[in-house]
């Protein structure tokens, strides 16, 4: 049945040990010199999760400070550093690298039947730039002036040499240049891999949706990140070489920084979100025992999001008073349509299925719920009159934290789903469910009071606030939610440590998965496959293990196939 595609790669050196996850000499030298996308993907995953824990610890300090109106836990200056570094770490060092550097790096080549990424050495360079960039950003805390303190958006003129004179700001700029190049190289790698290294029969419209989303993410990275890097170079020139690009006194324009930053920043929102959309799109059909509902619609929605995401940047800048309000408002409303389509497809994929509530599935459902709240409040903010009223209040903070907490929940879904593939072991389901409830309920408890206190006018990025019992109560609830999320991460750390030495019981295909990664061993061998099944649909592994079920092709979306497929599965 299986036509063998022996890792038909021509190896330049003696590659006779493709039988375990680590090939060749073990130890530090192997780690430093590896070009294997699986090891690099694991490096990325572990590093970014450590960054998330660090950023989360800073969030705990921020929430503790805000439980009282005139809190003295940290100084006002330290508070500025904390919220800046919390945001920077979570956005630049966790959410993106976890998705496109970690899980995508590991899974995309396997999902399309490729032996590695297209440019393995460039891939390794991406990781080293990401790691050094992360260290560079954190170094700011050890300089005499402290870390960067102008918010993760680095607005001019707060980020100029007068207002932020220390080395911390320069380290922040340098870190973003390093991680920016790391992201660009990963984007090149993802696009080239998906365009050139697919297995025979793996047409574009048979690729798993996760791979599709990573392709579009890769394209978006290539569109967006060079703009940020250019903007940062100009910022550095303003700070040190006496240019006046963002300096109104010298004839420059501070708003230009906002244009450049958000021209990167809004596609970046989708660079962060699309991989997690892809993860839950993999997880929901597998645990509903159904094919994905609306595959082509899903692809169309992803491409549409990419196209529209470049035209919405200035909705972050409504209150500057110099942007074209109707254009950006209209484009922002438009982009909610494809995202809404995805929600229909996810619900359609669960509808009538035999839903198994594993931890991964619970996290995926938690992602839908939290992201929906964040998405809908985003639509509210797309209306300029409402945005004028709520800009820079906790309403906005609660909005985007709903979105990014959804991403953290989605990340957990991805980890629980693919952990057996990456390690051969299961994470503990009972601890996973405990973590799910702590994280999701904690997350909701954290954001909901934020909306209310924001509507009452509490500004963001303030270490102290007016003494008002309502504000304080809402802040205390918010902090309790935040601490619950913190505890959930401890549960996760305990779970990961506990299962690190567990016996390898997962086997190649523990979830009865659809896509090619479930066809190979867990963890996959060097260069990924001993053999590959023929690819006739978007679910090659499922087709192979359920030969009696009618094959599902896109040209033939006969609804009668779906019950047939479920019946064949039940037999």
């Amino acid at each position, binding site marked *: 049945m299986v036509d063998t595609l022996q890792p038909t790669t021509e190896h*330049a050196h003696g590659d006779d040990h493709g039988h375990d996850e680590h090939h060749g000499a073990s130890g530090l030298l192997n780690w430093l010199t590896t070009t294997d996308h699986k090891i690099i993907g694991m490096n990325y995953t572990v590093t970014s999760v450590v960054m998330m824990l660090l950023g989360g610890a800073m969030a705990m300090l921020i929430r503790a400070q805000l439980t009282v109106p005139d809190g003295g836990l940290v100084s006002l200056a330290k508070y500025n550093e904390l919220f800046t570094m919390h945001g920077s770490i979570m956005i630049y060092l966790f959410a993106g690298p976890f998705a496109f550097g970690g899980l995508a790096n590991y899974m995309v080549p396997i999902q399309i039947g490729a032996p590695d990424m297209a440019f393995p050495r460039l891939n390794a360079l991406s990781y080293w730039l990401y790691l*050094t960039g992360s260290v560079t950003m954190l170094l700011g805390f050890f300089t005499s002036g402290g870390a960067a303190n102008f918010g993760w958006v680095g607005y001019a003129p707060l980020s100029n040499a007068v207002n932020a004179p220390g080395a911390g700001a*320069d380290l922040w700029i340098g870190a973003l240049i390093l991680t920016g190049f790391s992201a660009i190289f990963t984007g090149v790698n993802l696009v080239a891999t998906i365009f050139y290294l697919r297995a025979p029969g793996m047409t574009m419209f048979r690729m798993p949706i996760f791979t599709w989303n990573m392709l579009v993410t890769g394209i978006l990275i290539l569109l967006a990140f060079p703009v940020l890097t250019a903007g940062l170079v100009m910022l550095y020139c303003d700070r040190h070489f006496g240019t006046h690009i963002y300096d109104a006194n010298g004839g420059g324009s501070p708003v230009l920084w906002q244009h450049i930053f958000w021209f990167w920043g809004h596609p970046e929102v989708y660079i962060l979100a699309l991989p997690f959309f892809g993860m839950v799109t993999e997880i929901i059909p597998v645990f509903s025992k159904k094919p994905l509902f609306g595959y082509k619609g899903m692809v169309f929605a992803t491409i549409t999001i990419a196209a529209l995401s470049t*035209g919405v940047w200035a909705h972050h800048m409504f209150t500057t008073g110099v942007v074209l309000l109707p*254009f950006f408002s209209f484009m922002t409303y438009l982009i909610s349509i494809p995202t809404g389509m995805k929600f229909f497809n996810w619900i359609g994929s669960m509808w009538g299925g035999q839903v198994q509530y594993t931890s991964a599935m619970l996290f995926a459902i938690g992602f839908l719920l939290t992201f929906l709240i964040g998405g809908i409040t985003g639509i509210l903010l797309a209306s300029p009159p409402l945005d004028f009223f709520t800009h820079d209040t906790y309403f906005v903070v609660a909005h985007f934290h709903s979105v990014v907490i959804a991403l953290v929940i989605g990340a957990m879904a991805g980890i629980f789903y693919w952990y057996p593939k990456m390690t051969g072991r299961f994470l503990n389901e009972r601890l996973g469910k405990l973590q799910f409830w702590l994280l999701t309920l904690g997350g909701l408890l954290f954001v909901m009071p934020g909306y209310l206190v924001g509507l009452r006018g509490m500004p963001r990025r303030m270490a102290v606030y007016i003494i008002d019992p309502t504000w304080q109560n809402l802040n205390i609830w918010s902090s309790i939610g935040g601490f619950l999320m913190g505890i959930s991460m401890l549960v996760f750390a305990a779970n990961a440590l506990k299962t690190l030495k567990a016996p390898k019981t997962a086997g190649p295909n523990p979830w009865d998965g659809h896509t090619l990664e479930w066809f190979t061993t867990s963890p996959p061998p060097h260069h990924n496959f001993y053999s590959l099944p023929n690819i006739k649909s978007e679910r090659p592994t499922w087709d192979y293990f359920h030969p009696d079920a009618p094959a599902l092709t896109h040209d033939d979306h006969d609804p009668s196939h779906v019950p047939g497929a479920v019946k064949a599965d039940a037999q």
Partner: protein
Amino acid sequence: MKFEARLLIWLGVFIGIMGIVYGVWSKEWGGTAMLIGTGILGIFPGLYYRWWSKRIGERPEDRDATMAEGAGRIDTFPGSSIWPFALGMGCWALVLALVFGTWFAVIGLPLVIFAVSGATAESRRGGDASGH
């Protein structure tokens, strides 16, 4: 390969048109330049892929195919290599030179040059022959 090319061209054309509409309507230069530049960034590689897709025709991964049709050499993948790490450290030193002083570049610049030439020579040999 055809669809890959179309995807990039469609994206580029859409963003380019959006840039023209935005430019005419807003008369704001920064955004207009970025949008039209982004459009070109889509169209340019898209046309290149289109040209290639015409030259090489349908590949096994563009149509119904069995694994056997794709058998043979896929590509040459380098084994382990120290150069990405060396290049990464060199770039890091260069960035630290921006912050802490030019003397970091004394380490960074030679390391970058050394690593780039090392990696290039390695490619010509077809991988790290000294690797395990």
